[in-house]
């Protein structure tokens, strides 16, 4: 009985959490436009969440592109379809690998640090003192970070996709010795913007929203203690990654 009650309480908490998160994100988005100083903060945040993530995304994309090319080549070769390696890689990258892996990396790098940053601000009463100066932290702190995250994740995903293709082209051309003209033309003919590229980008917008909601929620509502901040950063990474994978499945199933 105790156990069932505990599960019930957890479920209620989770539902309340989703409600609070939705409220926070909605308010953050609306109030973002209330203050024109937010645009300046937005640029700063885009540079933190976007530009500073480029090295991590580039490194990951190159290696994933290269490894995936070798692996697919081995399989395709046994069917005598080695020249299709570019197309196979392209489809996987644009539809799945790009949006999902970028989102997972993003949760770890950007989501966790946003949670920690907000948590620290809360612990040191910076939100309270902002409010005492008649400045709304949801507008000035939550808003710009939310918008920056929703903008930067799709851009980083596009960047990941292209770098992964370059990594793949390098392995296919230089190491495996496939004709690079065939590689690119197969890619160009086989991948369709509306059915392969666009759905991937759409997913990454949703992932951006999910990661932003999770990380801002844990930062803004989380326990305002040092150990609470540490735990909440971990929660952001765990829950953010899980939700990305779950929603990936749901979106793919729906878009079929």
């Amino acid at each position, binding site marked *: 009985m105790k156990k069932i009650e505990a599960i019930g309480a957890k479920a209620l908490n989770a539902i309340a959490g989703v409600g609070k998160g939705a409220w926070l994100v909605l308010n953050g988005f609306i109030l973002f436009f209330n203050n024109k*100083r937010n645009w300046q903060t937005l640029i700063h945040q885009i540079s933190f969440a976007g530009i500073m993530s480029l090295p991590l995304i580039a490194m990951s994309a190159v290696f994933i592109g290269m490894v995936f090319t070798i692996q697919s080549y081995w399989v395709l070769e046994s069917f005598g379809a080695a020249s299709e390696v570019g197309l196979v890689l392209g489809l996987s990258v644009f539809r799945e690998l790009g949006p999902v892996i970028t989102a997972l990396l993003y949760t770890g790098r950007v989501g966790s640090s946003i949670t920690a940053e907000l948590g620290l601000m809360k612990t*040191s*009463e*910076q939100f309270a*003192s902002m409010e005492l100066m*008649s*400045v709304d932290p949801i507008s*000035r702190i939550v808003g710009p970070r939310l918008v920056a995250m929703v903008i930067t994740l799709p851009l980083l995903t596009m960047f990941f996709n292209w770098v992964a293709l370059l990594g793949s082209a390098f392995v296919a051309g230089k190491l495996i010795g496939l004709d690079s003209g065939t590689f690119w033309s197969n890619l160009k003919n086989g991948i369709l913007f509306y059915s392969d590229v666009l759905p991937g980008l759409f997913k990454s917008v949703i992932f951006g929203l999910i990661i932003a909601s999770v990380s801002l929620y844990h930062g803004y509502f989380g326990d305002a203690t040092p150990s609470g901040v540490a735990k909440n950063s971990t929660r952001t990474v765990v829950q953010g990654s899980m939700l990305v994978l779950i929603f990936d499945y749901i979106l793919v199933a729906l878009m079929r």
Partner: protein
Amino acid sequence: MLNKYRSSEVKKPGPITLENVTFSRSGRKILDNISISIPSGKIIAIMGPSGTGKSTLMKLMTGELKPDVGSVMFNGKNIPDLSSRSLYEYRKEIGVMLQSNALFNELSVFENVAFPLREHFELKEDFLQSLVKLKLEKVGLRNACDLIPSELSGGMARRVSLARAIVRDPSIMFYDEPFTGQDPITRWVLLELIRRLHTTLNMTSVLVSHQVEMMTQLADVVYILSEGKIISSGTPKAVFKDKNPLVRKFVDGYSDGSKDMIHHPGQSLVEDLFK
């Protein structure tokens, strides 16, 4: 001098009146049916042992916390009932120096002090520069303006927080232990600063402090808070002579050593050690 950019004209703010205020935290009553008034234009000191709820009382007056029971009236309105918009309006009239400083850790000293001005007024950069530098000069930190909070000593951070609280020339100032971490000379300089601000801007000042000697000089009214109740109030002279043993204990220091220190409520030392 600065009326140009003040939202309202310089006028005496109304009094703040707390009536039958009770406030609990984690099931424990911290303030128990307290009624006090903060008359306008006066310097009010809230004193009392550590952990009795002085900061809590101040947070009720700034609208940061809401009482369980009772009202906190200002200009005919109950502060806990205000919508967030009206609360922000009220807070444009007040300046608060929190006990924890709450400086923005990513901004320089200068930008911390400039923050409320940048947020609320469109000032020319050179005018803003001189306003902020003037305030920093008053707290003796003009040359520290490029440091970030993590590079400050405890006492310096306190003074930055003070400069930020007064930068908008509020009509009510709340200071939570403004003198902690200051050397004796700085302490008296700050006291003079608080007094001068108070008289030139015609404001109401509420201070939390332990400094009996300084409050004798500065305060018009003293409230002594102990175990959730006001145990004495009046002019500093009268209060500091009060025969009430709890008041004596606070004013004369805890002369009997830790035995008389006011502890967090709970079991006695003997119970705790030999259970």
